[in-house]
């Protein structure tokens, strides 16, 4: 197989190149890929650059949703007034993905396709009910983001498919969001636990809640037991404790070089509890929006 490095200027061209050579490695910000040992890096001879494709760039409003191009950098995401306004949890996540230099290069689509369980933005996508627009030889298809990660670094991308856009439904009125990364230090860190929340509060009670966590399982996960424990409950300390206990109980984290399973379970519960207390406090102050 001959070596190749393509830098297509349209999505069609990218898809066609990938169809012609399924061995091409799609790359964008390269913030994970380039960390490889030099011998492995130099063995990557057939690469497909996704950073110059207009269809993969930009953040735009569509009917009932916002679509974010896969090659959008975290810097652009964090700076976007639209994202900050509608998806503050995502904007917050974007601001804690590495330092400035990393944010300038790392892309949302890369975070998704790279499928690390520690990807900071991924629990947010779960909590916000994101869908992915995948582009492939047969055209584009939409896939609920929750069905994308099949296992540790395994995804539902079909051969020849690329992540083209991330579609986030406009949050219903009254939705509150929260994001918290517990990392190995205060900046430029890999997460020990990441938690994202989106909830709709009506009359002091939780009408609907999505809770998701990263770095606690081989893939980012929705905290279904915690959500069930929260649904319909009125906000307050008791509910917060109950939901936190459910969250800590439903995950099976591991010991690794960054943290311990015990601590991860503990801190996940604490963060969930704090998020619910904060929502309650904001609600009581009339600040929930």
């Amino acid at each position, binding site marked *: 197989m001959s070596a190749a490095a393509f830098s297509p200027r349209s999505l069609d061209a990218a898809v066609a190149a990938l169809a012609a050579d399924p061995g091409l490695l799609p790359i964008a910000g390269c913030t994970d890929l380039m960390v490889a040992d030099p011998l492995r890096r130099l063995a990557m001879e057939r690469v497909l650059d996704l950073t110059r494709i207009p269809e993969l760039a930009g953040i735009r409003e569509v009917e009932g949703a916002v679509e974010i191009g896969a090659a959008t950098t975290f810097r652009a995401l964090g700076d976007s007034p639209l994202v900050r306004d509608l998806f503050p949890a995502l904007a917050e996540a974007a601001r804690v993905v*590495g330092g*400035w230099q990393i944010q300038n290069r790392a892309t949302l689509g890369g975070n998704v396709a790279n499928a690390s369980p520690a990807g900071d933005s991924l629990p947010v996508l779960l909590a916000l009910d994101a869908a992915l627009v995948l582009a492939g030889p047969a055209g584009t298809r939409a896939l609920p983001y929750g069905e994308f990660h099949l296992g540790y670094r395994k995804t539902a991308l079909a051969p020849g498919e690329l992540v083209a856009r991330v579609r986030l439904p406009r949050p219903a009125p009254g939705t509150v969001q929260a994001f918290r990364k517990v990392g190995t230090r205060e900046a430029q860190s890999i997460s020990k636990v990441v938690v994202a929340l989106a909830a709709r509060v009506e009359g002091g009670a939780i009408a609907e809640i999505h809770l998701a966590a990263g770095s606690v399982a081989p893939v980012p996960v929705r905290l279904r037991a915690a959500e069930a424990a929260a649904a319909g409950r009125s906000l307050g300390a008791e509910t917060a404790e109950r939901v936190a206990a459910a969250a800590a109980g439903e995950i099976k984290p591991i010991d690794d070089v960054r943290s311990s399973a015990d601590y991860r379970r503990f801190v996940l519960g604490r963060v969930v509890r704090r998020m619910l207390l904060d929502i309650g406090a904001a609600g009581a102050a009339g600040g929930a929006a």
Partner: protein
Amino acid sequence: MSVTVRAAVNGEERALTGHPMARLLDVLRESLELTGTKEGCGEGECGACTVLFDGEPVLSCLVPLFQCDERQIETVEGLAEAPRARAFLDRFVAAGGVQCGACTPGIIVTAWALLEREARPDVEAVRDALAGNLCRCTGYEGILRALAVDAGADETEEAAR
């Protein structure tokens, strides 16, 4: 296999040839002998290899050569030649922002990008901008003094007199 890309390095058009996945860091240091850009970790963690890529600070150890086509790249050597950088560089030295000098080029490049966007940043803004640049010598105090308007530089300048 190798590719050739055309990029402006410190304002000068260059044809750069190498493996498509060669690190911009190595191309700068080895092909162009621009050794001001340093390698501190090779893994995107320390910031010592920071350069400006179309005006934005990026880590040159994580940029493959073939993505550099038609890009503007500025290194510490290029910034150092800008006449308006001189006062900043002098202030950086005077404030104690430099000790061993290995992180310094990366910090200078990142700080310069910050000052281009915000002429008088405060400590919080400097911390935000430099969170991806590790320094092991200064405790960051000298760097904050050199860059942040509210870092207490005046008091210390006085003491230095």
